[in-house]
Every structure is written in structure tokens, then in C-alpha cells.
């Protein structure tokens, strides 16, 4: 637990009387040190061979059984796993922390492929609410539509939905890229803090409501802007990045990205002077 103490140096928030304490002490975050590589162990990961392929029919399994089976197959070195008959079950493919080709032949329910760090996932169907929540790295491609809270709190990686998504896409997003081929619902980018969201279609009301930072690109119509979300001019680097990203995502091949609307935070709602230096790094 970090210690709390008062400080002489006042930030803008402190001068407004919002708080007087600052956090000190050691962070609990562990950083990778190349000098200690041989001692470094990322718990729950496996060395897998992408050429070693297998199929798993989860029709008669609950999500816990299915996830344990996926873990078992990874421990045996399988690097390409095809999941048959997911049947809209919840929480499939969660917590995978190593490289893996994971293919779902069907649709997922809620919380599919959440908290992953590294795998490449393809869902040949639809996903329910909160797909890829807390994703750290990797690539997830959804061939059809997605539910609400798509990519909630993602930290990194690429999350692509070729169809339309529900409300609150990228809520609390902290990094990475979310790309939507169709339309997106209300509150897209709600309270997002980092990263980028690209919507080729229309978006609903309250776009980017209370966003702290990050960037949203919209190709279609915008229902309305949320609090503190403002339009910003497109730059050449935006256009180059969008072209590159859409090509990698295999989506919107002929889309004219130069006509997209760029939305960023107005930064009126929060005190940005109080950010830690490490927090001031640009979006991932």
C-alpha cells in the first residue's frame, strides 16, 4: 500500500482545493529487465508452434471446461486452435497470455477473449458485450457484429469488428486501436484515456463523452458530441496512419480516410497539469 503525505508543490487541482495528498512509494508494476531475462517468467504462458493445429468442439462444454481445454492444448504446444460450435457461450478464450492463433467458428457471448496478451483471434461470427475487455496485446478480428462495450478498457493491440457495434465502444480505453467497419452506437469512446477508435460508418449520440485523451475517427455521421469532445483537423500523419491501419486490418480498402472526422478531448474537464511524467507519454 502506497504511503500518503502532503506536498508543498501545488498542482492546479490542489490549488482548486480538490486534494492535498500525493501518492508515494513503490509501484506494484513489474518491469521486464533484459539483464534478468533468464530469470524472467511470465506465469501462465506457453511456447507454442503455430504449425501444430488442432480442433476443439465446445458444444457440450461450459466455458470453464472449454477454457481449461484450450489451456491444456497450449501446454501441449498447439499454436493454432480452431474452436467449433461456441454457440454464443460467455467468457470463451479469456486470459490467454502468449502468442496463439485462435479461431472461433461461430459466435461468442459476453466477455469473449477478455484479458488477453498476445494471441491472434478470429471470430467467424458475432460477439456479445465486452469483447476483448482489458486486452493487453494481440489482434482480434470479428467477422460480423459486436455487442456493447466492445473493447472496454483495452490497453493495447488491434481490435477489429467488420460489422456494427453497440453502445459504449472503447469505454475506458487505455491504449491500442479499435476499428469498426460498420456503425457504432451511443457513447462511443466514453471516458477513453488513450488509444484510437476508428469508425467507418455512423456513430450515435454523445460521441467521446468525458474522454480524457485519445483520438476518434469517424467516417459517417455523428449523432452528437459528448461533454468535452471536440473536432480537430485531420493531419497528414493521421491520414497515413489510417491508411496503414485499415490495410493491416483488411477493412475499408477503398475508403477515403481524408474525409473522416477527427475527434479529441477538449481537456476542459480534467486537470492535465497533475499527470505523472510517465502518464504524459503519447497514445500507444
Amino acid at each position, binding site marked *: 500500500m502506497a504511503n500518503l503525505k502532503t506536498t508543498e508543490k501545488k498542482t492546479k487541482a490542489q490549488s482548486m482545493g480538490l486534494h492535498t495528498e500525493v501518492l508515494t512509494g513503490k509501484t506494484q508494476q513489474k518491469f521486464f529487465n533484459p539483464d534478468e531475462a533468464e530469470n524472467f517468467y511470465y506465469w501462465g504462458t506457453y511456447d507454442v508452434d503455430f504449425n501444430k493445429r488442432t480442433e476443439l468442439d465446445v458444444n457440450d462444454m461450459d466455458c470453464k471446461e472449454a477454457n481449461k481445454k484450450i489451456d491444456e492444448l497450449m501446454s501441449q504446444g498447439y499454436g493454432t486452435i480452431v474452436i467449433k460450435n461456441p*454457440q*454464443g*457461450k*460467455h467468457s470463451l478464450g479469456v486470459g490467454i497470455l502468449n502468442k496463439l492463433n485462435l479461431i472461433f467458428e*461461430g*459466435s461468442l*457471448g*459476453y466477455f469473449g477473449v477478455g484479458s488477453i496478451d498476445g494471441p491472434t483471434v478470429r471470430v467467424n*461470427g*458475432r460477439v*456479445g*458485450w465486452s469483447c476483448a475487455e482489458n486486452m493487453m496485446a494481440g489482434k482480434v478480428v470479428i467477422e*460480423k*457484429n*459486436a*455487442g*456493447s462495450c466492445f473493447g472496454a478498457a483495452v490497453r493495447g493491440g488491434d481490435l477489429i469488428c467488420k*460489422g*456494427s*457495434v*453497440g*453502445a*459504449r465502444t472503447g469505454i475506458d480505453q487505455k491504449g491500442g486501436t479499435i476499428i469498426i467497419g460498420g*456503425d457504432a*452506437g*451511443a*457513447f462511443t469512446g466514453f471516458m477513453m484515456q488513450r488509444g484510437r477508435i476508428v469508425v467507418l460508418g455512423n456513430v*450515435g*449520440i454523445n460521441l467521446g463523452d468525458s474522454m480524457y485523451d485519445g483520438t476518434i475517427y469517424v467516417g459517417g455521421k455523428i449523432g452528437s458530441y459528448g461533454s468535452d469532445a471536440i473536432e480537430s483537423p485531420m493531419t497528414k500523419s493521421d491520414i497515413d496512419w489510417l491508411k496503414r491501419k485499415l490495410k493491416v486490418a483488411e477493412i475499408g480498402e477503398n475508403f477515403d480516410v481524408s474525409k473522416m472526422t477527427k475527434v479529441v478531448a477538449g481537456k476542459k474537464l480534467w486537470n492535465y497539469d497533475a499527470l505523472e511524467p510517465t502518464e504524459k507519454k503519447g497514445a500507444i
Partner: protein
Amino acid sequence: MCGIAGLIHRGKSSNVGQELQGMLQALKHRGEDSTGYALYGDTDGQNFIMRFKVGENVGEGSSSVMEDVSVYDERKKIVDSYISQMGAKIIKEERILPYSLRYEIDYDKGDLLEFSQKIESIPGVEILSMGKSLEVIKDLGNAKAVCDRYNLGDLVGTHAIGHARMATESGVDIKSAHPFWGYPFSDVSVVHNGQLTNYWNNRRILENKGMRFMSECDSELIAVYLAEKMRNGATLEEGMKDSLSGLDGVFTYFVATKNSLGMAKDTMAAKPLVLYESDDLVAMGSEEIAIRSVLPQEIDTYDPFDGEVKVWQI
């Protein structure tokens, strides 16, 4: 949390009792305090079907007070006499459980408001549904338990809506269970997932206009709200669109009539709904697994957007 499910076959009938049971059972993790069905069966359309209760289920988990079965018998006798006094005739009578009954009634006058007020003036008696196609069946327990208890598996019809309830706003009892009948309109029923925050304000206004509430469940407000709009000449769809601003809170609800099925989602899109739509079938539920129980093959589904209202005809 609660789960809702509904389906409508267009141009044909099907075993909707069994199908809805499968859909609701798939959602039982969203709540199994009580489960309710609103089934629109194939009938000749001659007589009214009245589902009513003369007491509560006082089984495990119930928040109701236990009563002697003789009290139920006494209430039933009064119901029978009132039906006769109203000029109606009981064609068929089924007492499925000591507290739950199903009557087929020949009632020419067709004034359901007067009829219902008379029947429900008996303390402890509540009409669960009244219509020429609609039958509302609701009781404590999960979908399978209720389906087995009431033999719903064989019911053939065109459409149905249902609800798996986790009690949060009111007691664990039949009167607070969904679906709610759109009293006093024949064949109108409602199920709801969410919370309504302006329940009491709306209730006071509607009660002053002569509308009736049987429970303190916020979801009942939707049925009464729509009934009041329709009483004043609005169509079902107009009433549903009006409800997006008239009802405050988070909600996804289904409403069904004799020939149609509709859905509405609040402007925050805070409550889930997955929808499958084809030329001959529309199926929808709080989660995709509900739809999967009737359509196991790979299908295209989607989430309706915020503030969306849709109505389908049979």
C-alpha cells in the same frame, strides 16, 4: 439483472411454449426468482381466456404470506358468482394449481375494464391476463420448473414473450413477476429488463387518470403507460416511441399484442438485447444463447441501437 426473450413466427404457428421455455432456461443465470410466459396460442377467437390467481405461491423463497387453501376456494366461488352477474358464461374451467386458474369465458359485452374491476374487487384475486389469444403464466422458479408445473410445452401459437426474473425492486411473488398484462386491453403483454427511476411520479399521474396498478414492481409501469396511451388513441408503436422520453431509467422491453411483437431500447442503450430477424422468424433475447436454443445453426444477429423501437406483425 433479469433476462427477457421473445419470438414471433410470421405466417405459421409453432410450438412456442417449448421454444420460449428453451430460451428462458438459457437465461436462468440472469435470475430465477420467478419466470413468466406470455403465449399467443392458436384459438378460434370466440371466447376470452382469463388466467387469474386467487392466492400466491408461498414456496421456498417467496415473500408472500401463507394462506389456507380454503381461502382460495372461497375466492374462486366469488369469482364464479361475479362472472355470472356480469352476464358472462364459463365455458371451460381449469384449476392448474390451488391458487392458479384458467377460464374460457363467453362474454359478449367485451368491456374488459368493467369486467376486470369487478373481478379484482375481490381481495387476493388478480387477473394475470385476459384476451382471445394471450395467456400469461407466471410463477416462482426457473423456466423449466414453471413450464413443467403448467404443462406449457405443448402450447402451439404464433408468438410469445417471457421473462426470467431476479427480484430487485419488489418482492419474490407472482404479482411482481413479469409479464404484465396491458390492463384493460385484450391480448396486450409486456416484459422488461432494467430499472425505471420515475416510477412513482408516473404511477401517481396514471392512477389519477384511473389506471390500475397491482404491484409495486416498476416494470408494471410500462404496461400501464402503454395502455393509457392506447386508451387515448395512440397506436402501440406511437406509445412505445413516446415511452422513450416518458420513462426515465434504463430499460429494454418487449410488448406483444394479438398480431404483433415489439421491442424498445432506452436512449442510453444500457440494457442488452440481441436480435435475429428473418422473413419467417424474429427471435430476440438478453443474450445470444437464448436465440441459440431455437436456432443452433450459424446465424446473423445484431444489437439494436439506443432509442430504437421495432414492431413486427405475424
